[in-house]
Structures are given as C-alpha cells and as structure tokens.
C-alpha cells in the first residue's frame, strides 16, 4: 500500500511515462507471440509443408494408379463386373450398384482415409514440440539472450508458462488447422479424380463422408493432447532449464538408462510390477507424450467396436475413445508430474547462474 501511494505522489511530481501497467493477458499475448516469432518455422510452416507433401504423394499415387489402370485396360487385362470398360474407369457405375451396407462401408472408408491421409501435420507436430521444449530454456542460456529477457518486467513464471502454452495449445492448434486444411484439399483432389472418371464427387465422396465431423474430432483432440503431453513437456523443459550442455542427450539418457537398470535388476518385482510397467508408464510418458495418439494405450477402445475387419469408425465413438483417456489415472498422474517438473523449471530459470 505504501509503495502505491508513494508511486502516485511520485508520478504527480515528475512527468514520468504513464504507469499504466500492461494488462496480464496482454503480456501473455506478447509472450505467446514472441514464441511464435521465434518458432514460426516449426509451429506454422512445418505442418503446412507436411500437409503439402502428403497431398503431393496422394496426387502421385492417383497418377500412378491411373496410368497402371489405363495400361491394364489397354491390354484388356482388367475387367469390371465382367464388362470391359471403354474410355477409362466409369466410377458412376460403382455407386449406382451399391446397396445400403456398401454405402455405410464406403462412408467409413472415406472418413478413415480422410483422417489418415491428412494426418502428416500431426506426426510432424510431435517432433516440433519435442525439440521446441528441449530448446525452450536452453537456447536462451546458450546465446545469453536470457539476460535480455530478464531485463524486462516479465516474471520467470509467466515466461515458462507461455512456453508450455505454446507447446501444448498453440502448436497443436496450428497443426490441427493444417490437418483440416489438408483434409479438405485431399477431398478436392480426389473429387477431381472422381470427376475425371465420370463419377459424381457429391454422391461418392462429400455425401457419404463427413468432413465437418472429422474436423470436429480433430479439434476435440487438442485438450486431450494438452493433458497427455504435459509430463513429456515438463520433463523436456526441466532438462532444458538444467543441462549445462547437450540437453537432448540428458533428456533421453536418464529415463532410458533408468529403464535399462530396472529391467536388468528386476527392481520392479519388489513392488509387484514388471519392468514393462516402468517402460510404459515412465519412460514412454517422459519422452513420447508429445506425439499425438500415443494415448491409445490407455484409451477405452471398446466403444469403437472394431470386432470384424469390415467395421467402420464413427466420429462419435472416436470422440468417446479419445476422451476416455481423460478418465484414466495415467493421464492425470502424468499431468501432475508434468506440472511439478514445470514448476521446477520455473525455479531453475529464476536462480540458474551461468557465471
């Protein structure tokens, strides 16, 4: 109280720059923007490139398929329903002959190929976040720019939390956006192909498929990702804040060595667990959590009902499976460990003396 009164008296007396402190959310916004400026290549361009390359591969596959099919037709080796097709493949005929069950399978197949063929940005996301966290508190010490950041009125807590938010929210959101964009581009690409073969893309693709529901599933995966990635993010950032050099080696070696040690001496038997438990729940969670989908191990996949090979995936079931992860103790114990390690990183950044 004393300080604020004095500060006001002070400001009244001399014309200092107005002391309207930037609002906390404004600071956070700038901290996030700062991370984006620095890591635009990984956060923004990498998923786009990944999506672009996967589209290119799809296009190449279509062209190769087309060429092969035409060659087969030309030599009369390929027949469709006992009738040799002229003028290429007639896809219009395929839909006209399908019954309801076929349509359902087609829909599921289209949705699945939409989800998978465009998920490259998400694989790239895993690598981007992994190396981002590993460098997040190390690089600034290495190039000494931490001295600049620390000369500004931004607390270590806010700085570290902005980096966590970049890793578990900003980067995944951008990757999901790239995923969705790739999915639609994929549909357009395949539509062109279908059109070229006399099929109607609306009845064959856009009708039975459900791109919007797919997009919903993708967006809904972000919170699950955030919770599931926390232990890995925490561990990598802790190594990043602590290692004097080679944070990558430390981050990998410590859990892996611990795992080897435990497997070797069967330490886990003492508490009635096998060493596989340690690898699954400690090593994998400390290193692999930033890769989307690694939660499938604990997810409840029963709702998917993939009992027969022909069974298809539905968005609702997919969503249920994904969110069943948030009902497991593994997710929350891991998240708590992650939060503890992030707190340790904040402390480390506050007091670390580079000499």
């Amino acid at each position, binding site marked *: 109280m*004393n*300080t604020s009164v*004095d*500060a006001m*008296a*002070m400001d009244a007396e*001399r014309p*200092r*720059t107005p*002391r*309207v*402190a*930037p609002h906390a959310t*404004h*600071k956070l*916004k*700038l*901290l996030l*923007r*700062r991370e984006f*400026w*620095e890591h635009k290549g990984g956060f923004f361009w990498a998923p786009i490139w990944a999506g672009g390359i996967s589209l290119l591969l799809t296009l190449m596959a279509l062209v190769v398929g087309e060429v092969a099919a035409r060659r087969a037709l030309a030599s009369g080796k390929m027949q469709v329903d006992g009738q040799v097709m002229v003028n290429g493949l007639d896809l219009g005929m395929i839909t006209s002959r399908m019954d309801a069950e076929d349509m359902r399978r087609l829909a599921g197949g289209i949705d699945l190929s939409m989800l998978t063929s465009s998920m490259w940005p998400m694989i790239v996301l895993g690598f981007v976040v992994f190396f981002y966290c590993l460098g997040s508190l190390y690089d*600034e010490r290495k*190039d*000494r*720019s*931490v*001295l*600049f950041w*620390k*000369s*500004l*009125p*931004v*607390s270590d807590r806010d700085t570290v939390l902005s980096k966590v938010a970049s890793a578990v929210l900003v980067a995944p959101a951008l990757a999901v956006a790239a995923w969705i964009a790739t999915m639609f581009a994929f549909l357009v690409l395949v539509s062109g192909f279908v059109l070229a073969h006399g099929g109607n893309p609306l009845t064959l693709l856009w009708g039975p498929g459900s791109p919007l529901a797919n997009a919903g599933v993708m967006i809904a995966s972000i919170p699950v990702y955030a919770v599931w990635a926390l232990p890995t993010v925490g561990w990598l950032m802790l190594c990043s804040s602590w290692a004097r050099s080679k944070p990558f080696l430390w981050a990998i070696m410590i859990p892996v060595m611990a795992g080897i040690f435990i497997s070797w001496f069967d330490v886990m038997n003492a508490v009635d667990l096998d060493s596989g438990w340690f690898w699954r729940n400690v090593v994998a969670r400390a290193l692999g959590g930033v890769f989307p989908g690694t939660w499938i191990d604990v997810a409840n996949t029963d709702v998917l009902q993939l009992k027969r090979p022909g069974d298809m995936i539905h968005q609702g079931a997919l969503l249920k499976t994904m969110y069943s992860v948030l009902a497991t103790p593994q997710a929350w114990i891991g998240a708590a460990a992650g939060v503890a390690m992030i707190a340790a990183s904040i402390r480390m950044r*506050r*007091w670390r*003396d580079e*000499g």
Partner: protein
Amino acid sequence: MNTEIRNGSPVVVARGLRKAYKNKLALDDTRFEVPLGRIVGLIGPNGAGKTTALKAILGLVPFEGDLKVLGKDPRTQRDELMNDICFIADVAVLPRWMKVKEAIAFVAGVHPRFDEAKCRRFLEGTQLKPDLRVREMSKGMIVQLHLALVMAIDARLLVLDEPTLGLDILYRKQFYQRLLEDYFDEEKTILVTTHQVEEIEHILTDVMFIRDGKIMLDAPMDTLGERYTEVLVNADRVEAARALKPVDERALPFGKTVMLFDGADAARLGELGETRTPGLADLFVATMKGTYA
C-alpha cells in the same frame, strides 16, 4: 520509501554482501551505497566481483547479506523491481532471430515505462530498419538497438555491465554520448562497469574500486582531485618525497619519478615538483597493485 529517495537517500544500499563460488569469494562483506541521480563507475580487475555485485543488484544470483535496491530486496521482489530497473548485461545479448520491429513491439507490450515513439526516434538515421534481424547486424548495431530500447524506458536505475566491450571507438564514444545527452537526468541513476576507464572517466560522478569482493575506494569524482595528487619529482628530491609516504611511484626516463600522494599537504608537495590531479587509470593501477601477483 520514495520520499527518502527523493531526499537524496541511496538507490542501492548494500551491507555485508557475501557470495562464494567454488574456489573463491566473489563478494566478501561488500558494502556500498549508490546515491540518486549519479553516474557511478564500478571498476575493478578481472574476477574482482564486479559482475557478481551487479547480478546481485539485478536479482540474478542468490547471495547472503543485506541488499536494498529502490527499497526492495532483489531476491524476493525481483518481479516488481524490474519495472524500475533496466540493464544491459554484456554486449550483444539480443536474441539473434529477432527483428527490430519485433523487439520494439515486445518491449512496448510488456514494459509499462517504455515509450515507443522515443525508441523510434533514437533509431532514426541509423541503419536499423524495422525488418532487419539481429543476426544480420554488426556488434555495434546490436548495441545501438539495445541502447535505443533501454533509453526509451523511463527506469530509475540503469545498470550497464561492460556495455561497449568489443566495439570500435566510434560506437563507444557514441554510446556514452547518447546516454548523457538523451537519457541521464537528476532523477535517474546509472551504475556502470567497464575496463575502458579513460573513456568513461569524464562522465562519471562517482567511482568505486572493487578488489577481491571488497570496495577499496568509494568517492565522488570531484573529491578525487582534493585527495589525490600526482607529483613529478626530480631525482634529487626523491628521498624527501618518499618521506611523505606516496601510495605509488613509478620511474620515468631521465631520472624523474612520478609519485602519487593520498591526502598529503598540497603546499609541501608543490615544493617537491610539478603537481597535477591523477587520472582515474593511474589511481586504479596504484590501488590495484599486486592484484595478479
């Protein structure tokens, strides 16, 4: 608290600071004060504890002892303190990926006392264009940008640790010139360390010598002339002069000797030979004799 400061009470008060690294004491019962509205030079040989003292003031390292900066403890109140303190700790620490416009936008966004227009004015006429990245700049340009950012912040204490190391003489001169002309006023305090003693001598108002973590000398610049005298003594007067206990002497060619006296009677010194006020560098060398022995 601020009332006291306005009345000339110190911006920094340090009592019994202690900081030990593995094999040596960087701060050893260090005590000093930095008054308001002064430009204080903290000068010492390598490894004397200069940087550690500054890092303690900035709350960057843990230490023992009693330290108040603007009435706050930098260990526990660092986050509030940084609204009023600014520092350039080492040259060229701006992140290499950053663009000029990003640096300005960021500081403007997080610092309540940053004046963006002022910063742009400082950058006018320089080669620092908004889209230039730090990695594309020369060392001198990086310091130019850093100084422009810092000078646009209306801080009460500015700490500079070797701010011009490795810069050429043009940039060094320009650096201190700008600081004096466009930044410093009686409400601000600057604490600076450097090895280039001669270059900052004329801008300092106070000087502190530090050696092995202890303050050896702490005096306003204008009292140095009253206290210290340098005498050019002829060979035949050397014994008489030595009787007055010079703190330092060094021989010149042709039999003359330069002696440095601390607090000796001016009239008697005048009889011994030609007298003058010693430069800061000479004083420093005399005080630090035997440091690296």
